[in-house]
């Protein structure tokens, strides 16, 4: 990613905007142009903010731009409509399978001291 491509994806990063297949209804995040299941054309789809942790893992070895943010938990979250997404967890000491989480906006990383701050969706326990 660069500061420019980060900007191009901000819409999807900030708001959990995914895609839904016009043929079979399959949803995915990040959005896909063609459906992963049937190959049909897709449309933009606003995913729900709430879900449950299905799987998680602790990431320690990361690119340098994540230095300030490592280690962090990466999780598969099943949203309330059944869509499964991969996202970072925050405000969590020790996650558990089934933990109720909701999407929020947090800093993902920064381009050094004088570069852009990149924001995006992370999941935290429901308030």
């Amino acid at each position: 990613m660069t500061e420019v491509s980060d900007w191009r994806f901000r819409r999807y990063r900030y708001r959990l905007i995914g895609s839904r297949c016009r043929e079979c209804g399959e949803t995915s995040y990040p959005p896909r142009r063609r459906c992963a299941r049937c190959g049909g054309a897709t449309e933009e789809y606003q995913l729900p903010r709430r879900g449950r942790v299905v799987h998680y893992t602790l990431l320690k070895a990361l690119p340098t731009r994540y230095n300030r943010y490592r280690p962090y938990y990466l999780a598969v979250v099943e949203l309330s409509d059944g869509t499964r997404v991969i996202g970072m967890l925050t405000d969590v000491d020790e996650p558990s399978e089934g933990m109720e989480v909701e999407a929020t906006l947090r800093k993902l990383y920064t381009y050094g001291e004088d570069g852009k701050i990149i924001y995006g969706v992370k999941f935290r326990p429901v308030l």
Partner: protein
Amino acid sequence: MRPTREVGIYGYGAYIPRYIIENRDIADLWGRDATPIKSKSFPSYDEDTITIAYEAALRAIESSGADRSLIGAVFIGSESKPYAVKPSGTVVAEALGLSRNILSADYEFACKAGTEAMQTVFGLVSSGMIRMGLAIGADTAQGRPGDELEYTAAAGGAAYIISRVEDGVLARLEASYTYVSDTPDFWRRSLEEYPRHLYRFTGEPAYFHHIMSSVKGLFDEYGYSPSDFKYAVFHQPNYKFPTRVAKKLGFTMDQIKPGLVVALVGNTYSGSSLLGLAATLDVAQPGDKILLASFGSGAGSDSMVFEVTDLIEERRMKPPVSKLISRMVPGDYATYAMFRDILRR
């Protein structure tokens, strides 16, 4: 000040980060006895004023059911903008999915920037230039390690959706008043990391003089007295100042207690009085009158009078401020220093 067309609060939301540090831990580290409050909040390593403003605004929209397409302004009051140059409001607006046809700017007036944003939106909504607007006060306030401010400088914020009364408000604005003067009690020079302050100067000539002047000005102009109010909220840089100013003005502890969150949360600067107002709205009933008086160093105070309406029940913030506070967990000084970027790997 009274707008020509009546305006009020359509929805409100607040946010406090998850972490608190005990004042005792800070005092022990620096070998001091002073503990002006019990604990203060601090932002997680991935939070800043933009993410706090987003959380508060999202809660205001979701709890009130406001139509995002009707929001025509996002003003964020803060003294801890993530960027010196680049508006915070555009990130928040984009993340909330608001229209791109909106007014947006960052406001700075030390701790008064949040109510300053509200005053601006009152005017824009009342004039008909916009239908609804978001006024947010949010901060991740800085206190130099070892300085008095380190005990209280906290993180948090609150957001208010302002609309015309005819669109349905949970609290109607009756009147506001403002009082400012050139008083150098606290400042941060450009490119400096931490603010400076003139110690005892922050009390009488700054906090007390400005809040008393704005509240008395409001009372004189519109004929209010303390007994007209069910609740009052004053800017909360510590526990002592708001309780003392309330007493000086003739308010009781019962009137200020619901909004007095500083003992556990700390001074959230631009978010401080707005967070107190949110905690007060959480318990207010239809017909209650609430006085809000902010204070910003430099210096000035905005006073506002709200009357709560029947819509309060259905629009209350979910979850309430008390829940945000009860979920907070203590962190030690090392965690605080790391999350605040004082310690780096």
